[in-house]
C-alpha cells in the first residue's frame, strides 16, 4: 500500500467506526480534543487498524499516540517494517 492508501484507510476507519467528520481529519487533529475519542476507544481503534491493514501493532507503537498524524506515522512505519 502507498502512504496515501494507508491514510485513506485510516481516515475511513475514523469515519465509519468513530463517526468522525471527514473535514476534521487532519494530521494535527488530536484524537481526544478534536476527534472525540476517549480512553475507552483505544483498543477498538487498534483492532480496527490491525484488521483493515493486516498488521499487528504492539503496545509501544500505540502508546503515546496523540494525533491522527501519529497514527499515520506509526502504521506506515509498521507496514514498512513488515514489508522489508
Amino acid at each position: 500500500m502507498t502512504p496515501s492508501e494507508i491514510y485513506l484507510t485510516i481516515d475511513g476507519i475514523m469515519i465509519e467506526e468513530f463517526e468522525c467528520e471527514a473535514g476534521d481529519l487532519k494530521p494535527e487533529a488530536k484524537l481526544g480534543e478534536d476527534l472525540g475519542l476517549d480512553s475507552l476507544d483505544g483498543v477498538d481503534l487498534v483492532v480496527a487498524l490491525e484488521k483493515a491493514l493486516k498488521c499487528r501493532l504492539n503496545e509501544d507503537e500505540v502508546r503515546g499516540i496523540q494525533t491522527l498524524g501519529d497514527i499515520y506515522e506509526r502504521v506506515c512505519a509498521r507496514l514498512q517494517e513488515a514489508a522489508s
Partner: protein
Amino acid sequence: MSGGHVKNIDRSILHDLDHRPPILCLDQILHNDSTSARCRHTVVAGPHVHDGVMWEAGLIEGMAQTTALLKGRAAREAGIPVQVGMLVGLKNLAFHRQPTVGEVVTFEVEIIRSLEPMTLVKCATRCGDELLAEGEMKFFLQPMGDPPAALSDSAE
C-alpha cells in the same frame, strides 16, 4: 436457596471469583485457556430471571463473569496480581432468545485484543447449538493497589 446452589458449583469457580449466588451465574467450567473460556449454567429463579426467563442483563452478567474467570486465572498462572475488572462497553450485542428457568446455557468468551488496561472480548451464549446472544464486550482492568476508578472523568 443460595446455600444449596453453592453445592452445585465447581469449587474452582468459587475459588477464582468473588461472586456468589444469587449473583454468580456460572456452575461449571467447560473450557479455559489463556485466551478463551466456556462455562455452563442452569438457569434458576433469582435476580437474573424475570417472568421465568433470564433477561438480557443476566446473559451479559454470565458472559462478563466468564471473562472475569478467564482473566483472573490467566493472571494467577502468570504469577501477577488479579485485577479488578469493570465492564465498560458493549458492541453489536444481539439477543436472539432468552432462556427459561431449567434450561442449561453456556457462556463463551474469547479475547479479541488486550491493550492495557483494556480488554476486548467476543462473547456468546448458547443453549445446546442454539445461539441465544452474541457480541463484543469491553473491560477496563484496574491494577491492584490503585484507588477505585472514578465513574466519570473529572472536569479539566
